[in-house]
């Protein structure tokens, strides 16, 4: 067991250094210490960076401390148990590590720090399952897809290792059920996205056919409900259904209670009374909506047209809407005053 160092003994005596130039004692002591600090900083920084951006490393400072303590104990035991010459051979000659190497490592690491980063998508609750396979991150400028890292566990966040720059880099992030969003990814910090908190829910629309159009949607009448995407002057069929109900196009939502009062007013305005149950039947049909999931999430700016086509192939009610930022929009279809006939082939048959 070595005793406390003598006051006249250089401080570097206990360190694994072989530099013993008496003419410059401060430099001799400072260099290994600086190297040691640099090395420790490099290790800690590297560990933190890989943990944050690559998802592996010593998870927290406690881990590093434990390892350092463990090494200390091991060194103490080694000093007690091993012969001096063997012990000396085991000691890492820190002073012998060229500073240039350390600086190169530091420089390389610094460069990596500034050009590599990550985007982590994590759900805020275990029950709220995100279809992880459909989460997409693409470079905003080139549209190039970024592949996510492999997930080993079900609840593990989805991680994208991305390139960036000191001023950040733009990406488009699309999480199913949410509006695609442009995000700027900076080095070092990266970006953590909790969809429920950070992203806007993809808009959904409740299309409500008027009473006469609802009657066309009974099986006996043979009417069809169709949603089309308006793409300039072109219409593209998105969905066809034949239920006697309203239609929720998008994601499932609860119908806000305040809407019922507005529906009442709407029916009263149309002079639809409840004498023969028409008003009640209509409200129930609106409330018991049919969910129509779109092939892709709707986005603000999308233009949709919904129409009810009668058994005789005439449009009896229609509505056109440009989606905004509202999560759920109530869109009543308007009855046609002079129903337009469509070619028989324009509206697909009811799905079986």
């Amino acid at each position, binding site marked *: 067991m070595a005793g406390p160092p003598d006051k006249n003994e250089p401080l570097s005596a206990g360190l694994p250094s072989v530099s013993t130039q008496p003419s410059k004692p401060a430099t001799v002591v400072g260099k290994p210490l600086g190297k040691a600090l640099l090395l420790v900083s490099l290790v800690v920084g590297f560990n933190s960076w890989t943990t944050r951006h690559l998802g592996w490393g010593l998870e927290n400072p406690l881990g590093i401390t434990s390892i350092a303590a463990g090494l200390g104990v091991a060194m103490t035991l080694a000093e007690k148990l091993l012969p001096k010459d063997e012990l000396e051979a085991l000691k890492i000659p820190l002073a012998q590590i060229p500073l240039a190497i350390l600086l190169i490592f530091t420089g390389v690491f610094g460069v990596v720090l500034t050009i590599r980063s990550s985007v982590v998508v994590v759900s805020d609750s275990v029950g709220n399952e995100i279809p992880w396979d459909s989460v997409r991150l693409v470079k905003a400028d080139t549209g190039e897809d970024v592949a996510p890292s492999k997930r080993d566990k079900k609840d593990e966040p989805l991680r994208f290792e991305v390139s960036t720059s000191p001023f950040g880099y733009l990406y488009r992030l699309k999480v199913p059920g949410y509006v695609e969003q442009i995000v700027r990814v900076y080095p070092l910090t990266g970006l953590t996205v909790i969809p429920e908190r950070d992203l806007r829910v993809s808009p959904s629309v409740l299309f409500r056919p008027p009473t006469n159009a609802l009657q066309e949607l009974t099986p006996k*009448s043979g009417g069809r409900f169709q949603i089309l995407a308006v793409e300039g002057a072109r219409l593209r069929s998105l969905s066809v259904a034949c239920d006697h109900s309203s239609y929720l196009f998008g994601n499932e939502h609860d119908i806000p209670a305040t809407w019922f009062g507005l529906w009442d007013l709407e029916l009263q305005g149309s002079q639809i009374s409840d004498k023969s149950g028409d008003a009640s039947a209509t409200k129930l049909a609106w409330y018991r909506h049919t969910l129509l999931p779109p092939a892709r999430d709707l986005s603000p700016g999308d233009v949709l047209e919904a129409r009810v086509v*009668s*058994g*005789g192939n005439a449009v009896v009610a229609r509505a056109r809407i440009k989606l905004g930022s509202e999560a759920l929009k109530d869109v009543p279809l308007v009855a046609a005053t002079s129903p337009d006939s469509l070619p028989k082939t324009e509206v697909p048959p009811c799905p079986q």
Partner: protein
Amino acid sequence: MSAIGGVRKLGALVVSFLMLSVITCAQEGPSKPSVQVDFRIEAIRYIGHFSADLTALQQKAAKRFAKTLADRFGFLGFTTEPQRTKLTITLANVSPSEICRLDDAVCPKETILRLVLEQPDRPPTSYDGWTYLDRQDFFVVLGGVDEEVENLDRVGFGKLNVSEVMVRIFSRVQLTDNAHLIWKPASGSGSPKTGLAGMTVPLQANILCADQHSVLVMRSEFPQEFTTSKKAELAVDAQGPFVPPDNPPDDTWKKETGNLFGIPSADPPRDRKWDSWEPLSAISDRDQIRITGVFMYQYRHMDTGCSAAILPSAFENNPGREP
């Protein structure tokens, strides 16, 4: 062999055609007026629902209504072929208020079957009182073409006020522009005076298919003292086919055999004003009486299959009107 067979078949065809022509010619004679039935759809929900099938629906409904009208109003012929007299039946909505427009398919409205009768040289006559669907039935579920034709016929005619439509529409269709007055000697007087026994319409009773309790309108003109001729509309109670006695006092009676016979109505329908028979009966010069038209006012379908006849003894109960 086959050539001989072909000639035989051709011969049989020609013979059949000739026989058919003979039969058809033999049946020709005065026929009841024919009315062209046209069916239109203006009701907004029906236009939207049927759209491409609208023409088919209108054609089928016209045929169906022509048949049912012929059954209900047997004194007229109804066809979908073009005729001088045209009856347009329009399925239409009636707006309850200005804010509930006819082209608004959401605001409930009454659905009616509007009748418009068009005749040459006469103003059109319309009737809007035939309700097909009440306002609360506006949103009834509509089905296929055949199904709706069936509904229109069954529900529509179930709600038809026959007597009102008779008065407002079909009483305007002239059956004939003349009639034959039947005069007979006054019974028991021994004088040469005659009384008006009735009139015959120059149409077979079984063709008109009008039973007793049917009421005809006879339009006539006859001279008056000090003024121009008087126009009169007289009520005639239909009696059935005319069957003259074996030795008729007038030779012309024989020609009227089987024609619809009617007598002056003693108690005509009270929903309109009628002229009295007295002035006409009092005319001494019968040749001055001009009958300008006969119309059916109240119709009762002949229950016995349009072939009932009245016995000559019926005349005994109708002694005629003394001049």
